[in-house]
């Protein structure tokens, strides 16, 4: 009896060891060939699900209106709101939490088309309304996922570019009238005002009293001064007030500072997953650190530039834009939450490619985009470009930086004539006679290898961008 009891224990131990052996083999197999034939580790890794859960909580932080502008219907004055303004935040909250979702889920209202503003965007925005603009048109699928809309099949919209909120139209106080512009057509929507939203009377009051608000500086439509201007929506400042703008200090995060002793930390922070071993080495010229295996290559450069490439990026199904966007946001969120602080990252543009989607993001500091100027050809570009398909991120170009005020600020005139005569024509005399303005804005530019971002005028002129360093009062 006693002997059989020992044998029984031995058998149990043997079975346990065998199971452990199979388990160990599975780990090794999965490390060597991730995901084939079944995602062994994924079944066990609970953190993956947590990440996906978290992205729903933070995905709203990755997109915002490029501009929210109030028009009181008088002449051509408009009042753009700063992102820090309470009214901006309230209007954007209504859109993000409620109105955008309804636009995606609902059918648009039928319009007679007899009124000019129902099919002419420029006529529409000259009325009393609040205009919300995205930097570039956003696809319906992306908005659907970002807002948590359930069904987008009823909507004829393909993209959303601009929205005009016209609170005067409907007499029903529980609904608001929106005109949605996709860049070609205008669609009318009646959306329900939620319990936590701004009331319709608040919208009307905001429009009616904006002229008396000393914290909001008016802008003029340039076409009202010069009717031959090609872009009738172009807004410029005609007053001579000045704005204080700080230079910014952009640094590589301390956690991933580029040096020999920090290799493990860099790998820990930047690698997509930590299954399997990778070859780790410095490049021959010592400018970047490489982690690679048969499927992917990570390069991290001394200036904070992070380059990830999946070797089979042109294989596989690209899927829906929202599936790829989710992968891209998870990739950013998993790194930024540990490394980057004090700056927002906003989706700027989505490009559809044959095998994947390209998502372009910008750093946005106090409402101003921060662009990077590369050293070789002086091109000014967005700081983050991520290519992804439905399964994974396949290519990343990302300048990983932390942001803070630098040691210097100045007061800058935003007046159109100061810009046009004293800067643009002074530096580009050829534009004195034939300028075709498409857009004028103020952004930060930081050299690729530099640490100081300074304010620049960005002008889309004659179909090409020009960047002019702003001249402060103290210069």
């Amino acid at each position: 009896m006693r002997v059989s009891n020992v044998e029984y224990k031995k058998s149990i131990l043997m079975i346990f060891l065998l199971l452990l052996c199979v388990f160990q083999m599975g780990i090794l197999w999965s490390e060597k060939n991730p995901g084939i034939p079944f995602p062994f580790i994924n079944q066990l890794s609970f953190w993956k699900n947590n990440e996906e859960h978290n992205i729903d909580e933070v995905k709203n932080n990755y997109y915002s209106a490029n501009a929210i502008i109030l028009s009181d219907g008088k002449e051509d004055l408009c009042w753009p709101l700063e992102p820090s303004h309470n009214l901006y935040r309230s209007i954007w909250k209504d859109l993000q939490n409620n109105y955008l979702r309804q636009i995606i889920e609902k059918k648009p209202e039928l319009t007679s088309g007899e009124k000019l503003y129902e099919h002419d965007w420029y006529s529409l925005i000259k009325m009393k309304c609040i205009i919300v603009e995205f930097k570039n048109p956003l696809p319906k699928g992306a908005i659907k996922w970002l807002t948590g809309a359930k069904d987008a099949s009823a909507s004829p919209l393909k993209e959303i570019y601009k929205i005009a909120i016209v609170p005067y139209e409907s007499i029903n106080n529980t609904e608001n009238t929106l005109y949605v512009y996709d860049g070609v057509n205008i669609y009318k929507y009646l959306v329900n005002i939620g319990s936590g939203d701004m009331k319709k009377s608040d919208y009307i009051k905001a429009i009616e009293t904006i002229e008396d608000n000393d914290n909001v500086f008016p802008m003029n439509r340039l076409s009202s001064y010069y009717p031959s201007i090609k872009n009738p929506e172009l807004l410029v400042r005609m007053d001579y007030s000045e704005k204080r703008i700080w230079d910014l200090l952009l640094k590589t995060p301390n956690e991933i500072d580029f040096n020999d002793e920090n290799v493990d930390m860099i790998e820990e922070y930047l690698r997509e997953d930590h299954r399997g071993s990778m070859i780790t080495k410095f490049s021959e010229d010592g400018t970047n650190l490489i982690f690679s295996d048969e499927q992917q290559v990570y390069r991290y450069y001394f200036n904070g530039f992070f380059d990830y490439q999946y070797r089979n990026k042109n294989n596989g199904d690209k899927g829906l834009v929202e599936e790829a966007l989710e992968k891209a946001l998870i990739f950013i969120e998993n790194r930024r939450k540990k490394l980057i602080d004090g700056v927002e990252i906003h989706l700027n543009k989505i490009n559809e490619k044959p095998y994947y989607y390209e998502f372009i993001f910008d750093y946005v500091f106090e409402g101003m985009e921060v662009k990077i100027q590369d050293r070789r050809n002086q091109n000014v570009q967005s700081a983050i470009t991520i290519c992804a398909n439905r399964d994974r991120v396949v290519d990343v170009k990302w300048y990983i930086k932390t942001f803070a005020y630098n040691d210097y600020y100045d007061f800058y005139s935003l007046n159109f004539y100061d810009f046009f005569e004293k800067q643009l024509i002074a530096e580009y005399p050829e534009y004195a006679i034939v300028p075709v303005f498409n857009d004028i804005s103020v952004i930060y530019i930081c050299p690729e290898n530099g640490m100081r971002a300074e304010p620049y005028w960005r002008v889309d002129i004659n179909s090409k961008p020009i960047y002019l360093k702003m001249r402060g009062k103290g210069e």
Partner: protein
Amino acid sequence: MAKKLFFMLLVIGLIAGGAVVSMATGDKGVNFDGALAEITLNGTLVPGVSVEDVQYIEDDIQEEEYIYKKMIEEYDSLFFDKNIQTDKVYIKDIVIKKSDSKKDVIQDYDLLVTLDDSVNLEYGDFIIVMAFVEKDGGYELLGTPIKVFIKYPKPYKFELPFVGEEQPNRIRIIAFPKSSYDQFTLEDNFQVEHKEVIIREPKQSFSIRSSLINTRESFNFVKSWEII
């Protein structure tokens, strides 16, 4: 001894060198932004403009005014002929709009023009734009004429004399190249445009709130003088 002498000479030399640099700004002051500034004739500080420059600019303005006056006298039959029609186009998209800068002054207006694409100016040349308003049977020059040599010049600012729907401001705009001001011909180098601006009289609307405020202010004023 030679060393001491050399050292003293060196110190004197350094002081002299330093003095030259520190005195280089002459009588200029430093404004609150730290920029070098000159005291102008009216006592204000203008960064980067010397007294001589101010004198020169004023002389220049006076000379220009004199030229404009002389031109108007010389060409008045051409400038103010009501039947005149011109084909030449130097400026286009003429807009006259109420000035944004002073919202309360209803007679302040801006004239905006765009340089026509066909205009090809030689270096140093420009288009002179003059605006006149019909008044007392004649024409009166409005504001200071502007020089146009870029596509989108600054507004031409002036004050219109007439208010009320029955008194329209009849404006005559004249444009010509500076290089041809002494050889005007209707066909070659002269553009005339007409515009009419009606300034509506502001409504004197009664407001209970503002009348109450006025009453309260009057009361406070009387009280401050201890009349009651």
